């Protein structure tokens, strides 16, 4: 079994998921996640050598669409839903780093 999840793990995961947790939440979530992961110890212990993973329950493949333009949505309708827009674009606070 993997080592139990720590508050440091939970803090790291919260950062990856772009969530802020108070110290109290951090403790509470750590305990709760640990309980769920402890329940999952039954499958962790299972010998699954040679068993392929299932990502899709359905055995279908090659679902393809023709390369034909279809009308999209109206820009004004979409921008009206945006928290902030400017010059036909979505406005966001400053970006500190380049895309990965």
């Amino acid at each position, binding site marked *: 079994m993997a080592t139990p999840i720590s508050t440091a793990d939970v803090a790291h995961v919260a950062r990856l998921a772009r969530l802020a947790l108070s110290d109290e939440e951090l403790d509470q979530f750590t305990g709760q996640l640990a309980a769920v992961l402890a329940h999952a110890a039954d499958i962790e212990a299972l010998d699954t050598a040679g068993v392929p993973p299932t990502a899709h329950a359905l055995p279908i493949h090659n679902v393809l669409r023709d*390369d034909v333009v279809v009308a999209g949505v109206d820009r004004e309708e979409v921008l009206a839903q945006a928290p902030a827009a400017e010059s036909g674009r979505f406005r966001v606070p400053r970006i500190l780093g380049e895309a990965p």
Partner: protein
Amino acid sequence: MSRSEWEMVIGLEVHTELRTATKLFCGCANHFGDEPNTNVCPVCLGLPGSLPVLNRTAVEYAIRIGTALHCTVQPSLFHRKNYFYPDMPKDYQISQYDVPINADGWLALPDGRRVGIERAHIEEDTGKSTHVGESGRIHGADHSLVDYNRAGVPLVEIVGRPDLRSGDDARIYVDELRAILVATGASDGKMEEGSLRVDANVSVRPRGAADLGTRCEIKNMNSLRSLGRAIEYEATRQITLLEEGGTVSQETRHWDEGTGRTSTMRSKEDAYDYRYFPEPDLVPIVPSEEWIRAVADALPPMPGDRRSAVAAAAKLAPDADPVVTVVRLDLDSLLHAAVAAGADGGLAVKRLANEVASSLERAAVLDPVAFATVVQMESRSALTPAQARTVLKDLLEGGGDPAAIAKAHGFEAMASDALADAVDQVIAENPGEWERFAGGEDKVQGFLIGKIKAATGGNADLKEASALLRGRRS
């Protein structure tokens, strides 16, 4: 250690946009330069509840690319690459991860060296941010504005193996790859418009070492020239660092065209963990044998094959400049037509790479048979090289019959005995120079040829004239 004791190891990742009518997973137009956010829909905006459906033509283009790069085309899956960034509408990119559609191929450089291709996989492009503020750049911007017209445009990412050894190598590789991509019809290969983007993994090691050094990934090169410069700068930076006893840390670095330097893009504690997992909204692609074969059969000849054919016709090396030029400028069909009509391949390639290449916009209207005729006339000395160039120029400008053009210019090629008479006359009139030439002083030949040219009013075949001069020497 001196610079020459170090070896650079370079592997390139090239992203190319595909020339489909629509985006990868939705029916929005794949079109550069439109008003912001006008080619968008619930899918490419990542609206809640929307789902992707794969574009068949994008898959076909990917298969074309894989086939042209001698890859194995195989059943593949899409994964999600998770990271937060405003130009990524779903905050994950749908990409291929451990099972790409194309794996394990190679690209031959013009000189014959092979560069390994690890994979060429399908993925979606991101949107584009504009940074608002005094600098207009990301740093120091006040805020940014996002346009999703490009979000979801199909890309193929071609991951090359670290087989390149210099900035020049890298430029030649990208140049060749671009030519191949354009030849497949899958890409327009425009680096300036961003439809072809190159990232470079650069490391250095002592020459002869087997292990690879720590590599840095360099981004933001937007021309072949900056690619070469960035690589050379980065290698020098790493060598200097190592020679000073430092170590290279694996990181992504940003090339600044203005300063000619690379710099760290982000701090290490912000390391990414992409949490790849199979995309549950899409099903596997399993291209049939027939599909793969049909795509391969429909591919036109690739630039390398075309260069080989030109080289064979011209009896030159495949990476000889005129051969490369003729193929790059798509003049090889003219060449092959001329050769089929009886022209000399070597001479035809020379005329194509020089005269025809320099008025390329007229080349499309050049009649191959007329071109072949000019080359033939020159080959059998019915025209001197200078005359042939003049006739060709007229032909490019206004078409017509080469013989008639030559006649109109008064280009009556000299009969061989007339030329011989002229040679003898010049020898008689310039005994001093002739003595020296006959005595082995080759540099006087130019003087004598000049006299022959003058004596024949420019109509002499100068190559034949010098052969005659040398013949009379012994």
